[in-house]
């Protein structure tokens, strides 16, 4: 049985070895931390974006019906549309929505008048605006110098901002302006009985593809129907397309770099001679491997933790999160993006294993290969010969 005293002394000596080779240890630390940061940032971002969209779109309508003609989108008659949709079996609670994109002080903003446009969780008990009032997203609020907001060009409207959507709903509300239906109609140029589109919930969500044809046939005018799962897929694709592929392609290269650095640091003449001396002093190959594993853990564990912590901060904490989003998506996502953290722990454990295990494997194999030689052969590599 191995006595208990052996491991602390080995671990203490491993720490001394780290201190003794401070430059190499720092290089390894920096390499590992950077690698973990790069991989973790990309994967955490992708995972978090998925989780966030899934969370937001979970409460979104299953289908959205838009009226179209030869010129594109046209307003939909609200009451008629509800009546037509209600007649389709499986359709629940068809709701006309009032929304549109208009010029704002800092660029285009999305005007909404119906809470059906965005998930109820976003509202979270906020007081609805009255005539002449608006609730705005973080991106719109940032462009304001006071509480007055002027929107539109032709049918321009000036409203008072009474509240701002919380930062953690930024993904859905960044450029949003919520106002009364009357103000929205005025701004969007819609008649009193017209809506922008019709949100439809289904009795069975899995029927969303099958019910499209029935729904389209129920309207007397041409319509385009958007499916919720298509939206999810589109957002996920957009989120991961630019950054994800490049990062996934880069992971093997980065890992290879780590393995080369690890191998180079461990397998050199000075190191071999040192191990030869240790063996001539009574160390076994297993002792040397244990020492190197201890040493690698002393350097590697904090490096992996630092890399993960940095990645976590870069993905989930603004303003770093905005920079990360810009970097990964090429600027497609909002600067004040705030992502859902659920599931991040599992991803982080996976990343730690993805980097940590190959690293320890390299240390183990390189060390076994070098330390298994006869001590005399290893001693010959030293300058004292």
């Amino acid at each position, binding site marked *: 049985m191995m006595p208990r005293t052996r491991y602390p002394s080995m671990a203490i000596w491993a720490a001394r070895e780290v201190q003794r080779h401070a430059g190499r240890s720092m290089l390894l630390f920096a390499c590992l931390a950077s690698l973990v940061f790069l991989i973790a940032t990309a994967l955490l971002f992708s995972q978090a974006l998925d989780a966030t969209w899934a969370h937001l779109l979970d409460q979104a309508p299953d289908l959205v019906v838009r009226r179209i003609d030869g010129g594109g989108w046209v307003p939909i008659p609200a009451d008629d549309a509800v009546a037509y949709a209600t007649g389709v079996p499986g359709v629940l609670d068809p709701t006309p929505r009032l929304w549109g994109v208009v010029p704002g002080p800092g660029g285009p903003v999305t005007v909404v008048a119906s809470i059906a446009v965005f998930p109820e969780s976003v509202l979270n008990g906020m007081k609805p605006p009255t005539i002449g009032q608006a609730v705005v997203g973080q991106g719109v609020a940032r462009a304001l110098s006071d509480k007055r907001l002027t929107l539109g060009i032709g049918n321009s409207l000036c409203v008072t901002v009474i509240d701002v959507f919380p930062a953690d709903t930024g993904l859905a509300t960044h450029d949003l302006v919520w106002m009364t239906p009357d103000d929205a109609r005025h701004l969007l140029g819609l008649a009193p009985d017209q809506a922008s589109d019709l949100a439809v919930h289904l009795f069975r969500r899995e029927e969303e593809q099958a019910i499209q044809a029935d729904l389209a046939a129920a309207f007397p005018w041409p319509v385009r129907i958007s499916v919720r799962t298509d939206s999810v897929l589109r957002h996920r694709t957009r989120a991961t397309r630019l950054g994800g592929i490049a990062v996934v392609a880069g992971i093997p290269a980065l890992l290879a770099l780590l393995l080369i650095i690890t191998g180079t640091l461990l397998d050199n003449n000075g190191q071999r001679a040192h191990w030869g*001396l240790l063996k001539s002093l*009574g160390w076994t*190959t297993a002792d040397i491997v244990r020492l190197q594993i201890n040493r690698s853990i002393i350097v590697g564990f904090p490096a992996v933790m630092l890399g993960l912590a940095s990645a976590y901060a870069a993905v989930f904490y603004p303003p770093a999160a905005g920079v990360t989003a810009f970097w990964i998506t090429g600027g497609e996502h909002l600067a004040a993006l705030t992502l859902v953290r659920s599931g991040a722990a599992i991803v982080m454990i996976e990343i730690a294993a993805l980097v940590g295990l190959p690293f320890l494997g390299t240390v183990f194999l390189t060390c076994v290969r070098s330390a298994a030689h006869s001590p*005399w052969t290893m001693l010959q590599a030293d300058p004292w010969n």
Partner: protein
Amino acid sequence: MELNTGLACRRLSFRWPARHANEPLVLESVEAVFSPGTVSLVTGDTGSGKSTLLHLLAGLIRPTAGEVCADGLPVSRWPPRHRDPWRQQVGIVFQHLALIPDLTVAENLLLPMIPRRIAWSRMQEEILRQLADADLSALAETPTSALSSGQRQRLAIARALVARPRFILADEPTAFQDDHHAAQIRAQLCQSAREGAVVVICSHDPRLRSSDEIDRRYHLASATLHKNFAHRKAP
């Protein structure tokens, strides 16, 4: 199996591999027994194979023919996974000392203790004892690179003795010492022998050759180890 019979060379031969095809044997059919409790001195010309003999006895290299036995066991034939742990019973002083220059004196002494299942408190005790025996107590925290040749050599001997090995193999252990310290080293090695260790010294040093404390003397010449009982008394 014989118990505690020390180190024995049985028809031990050695030739350096991968050199010239007709390379002569460095050692040829060497027969010797180095018993516990004795100090053996091996003399010989430079290049006669004294260091090679010590390396063979320490299990650092394998013989070309014959075997090295420790307590009757053919350790030179053992695979590395058995021979490596056995080497914990060996304390070796290299001719080139092989100290780690950036480590302190105390840390160099710690190196052989780490894999030997020794508690920290006992490690400290042994290190302090060896530092005192080697006149290095005041230099415990000094980097080895800052020591003189004599101090470095005494440190190498202290490192070989610190874990109280059963087989002590010393290559030119007094080469850089004044008479006082040479006598001190001789006394240290003899003390280890009195405690039951096998001590084998390879040296040119006339102070060792003429010492009464040497129990057995060998002379290595023409790849053969000759037992030599005659010696001069120390003046």
